[in-house]
């Protein structure tokens, strides 16, 4: 930990784990509500992912910096108040700069407060680790969340509306799968993505166990 390279390594490890190995959506299955609710187009899911990343980053930073000051008995309440403050900030920022997206996402921006990923990372990581590590962890987790969310949103928009970022991809002959932009499509897309993720993990395990033999 003393040598700068070791610390750099540690930072990189904390950052990378959120992207794939401990991906909040695929592995820990946290924060499902926004993942499904606003992911009917690519742009909405991207905005939601970035808003969550912002809140996660700053709340982890603050929780980690204050971790020695906050009494253990009231820590959850304190975390929630910190998170709610940053969510209010994001809400007003989005309303000011991108009113169209803010209108689309509606109450779901406010619901970032109860996104289990943020409270989960505050409690499980930021409250126990120094600021730099916590920030790296938050960035990794936030990016992992954003990428997974964007994946769901892109698949749903391509299949459900035949476009990506509102740019039509197919000719007029394409019949959009309307169900994909409706609520059931969210469940199906995430279900199948988890299925593919499980399958990849299983294959990896099989090839790893096959090698020594």
């Amino acid at each position, binding site marked *: 930990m003393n040598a700068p390279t070791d610390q750099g390594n540690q930072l990189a490890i904390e950052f990378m784990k959120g992207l794939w190995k401990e991906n909040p959506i695929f592995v820990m*299955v*946290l924060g*499902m*509500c*926004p993942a*499904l*609710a606003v992911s009917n187009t690519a742009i909405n899911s991207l905005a939601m992912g970035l808003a969550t990343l912002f809140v996660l980053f700053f709340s982890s930073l603050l929780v980690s910096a204050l971790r020695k000051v906050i009494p253990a008995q009231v820590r*959850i*309440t304190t975390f*929630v*108040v910190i998170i*709610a*403050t940053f*969510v*209010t900030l994001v*809400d*007003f920022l989005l309303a000011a700069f991108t009113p169209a997206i803010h209108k689309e996402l*509606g*109450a779901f921006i*406010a*619901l970032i*407060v*109860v*996104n*289990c990923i943020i*409270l989960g990372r505050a409690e499980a990581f930021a409250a126990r680790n120094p600021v730099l590590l916590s920030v790296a962890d938050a960035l990794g987790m936030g990016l992992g969340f954003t990428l997974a969310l964007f994946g769901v949103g892109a698949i749903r928009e391509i299949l459900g509306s035949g476009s990506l970022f509102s740019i039509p991809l197919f000719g007029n002959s394409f019949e959009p799968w309307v*169900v994909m932009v*409706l*609520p*059931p*499509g*969210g*469940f*199906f897309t*995430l*279900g*199948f993505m*988890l*299925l593919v993720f*499980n*399958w990849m993990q*299983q294959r990896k395990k099989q090839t790893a166990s096959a090698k020594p033999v």
Partner: protein
Amino acid sequence: MDNLMWIFISALLVNNFILAYFLGICPFLGVTHKLETAFRLGLANVFVMLITALCAWLLNTYVLIYAPYLRLISFIIVIASTVQFVEMAIKKLSPELFRALGIYLPLITTNCAILGLALFATNKGYGLAESLVYALGAGGGVTLALVLLAGIREETRILDIPDVVKGTAFTLIVAGILSMAFMGFAGMFSGN
């Protein structure tokens, strides 16, 4: 009266909190292994939702007109303390019910369906009676969805499902089919 009825049915079936709004997915996936616990969690939800709707209405009418930027923070604090208070009250008044609800009572704090209810009810500008009916419908809808999924999962336990599909992936696909079934209610009463 018609209006109240419509709010109730709409929250219960047409705009089901879990299957149409994706609120409260975590307990939906987490605690639907058994029919019994799913039903109890649903009832606890109804209870907390009713009290939250009442508090949200009070806050929105009397306090938040002076400080609208405190909306989110005040709601979440109200919900957290309500859940704590309800927990203590039930423990004192009916130890039996308290034991039956167990860990699910405190976990309701982080259920997005509750905060969602408070936000939607105030966004729509509901009055007191409307808020309470809305809470009842939404809570009933959550209970319905939990019980339906738990029932299906109990029935499918002995099925021979491929390994990769087991677990959350399977539950999500079942939920998708359920959600599709609930889409059949869309457009109900829209003539009013």
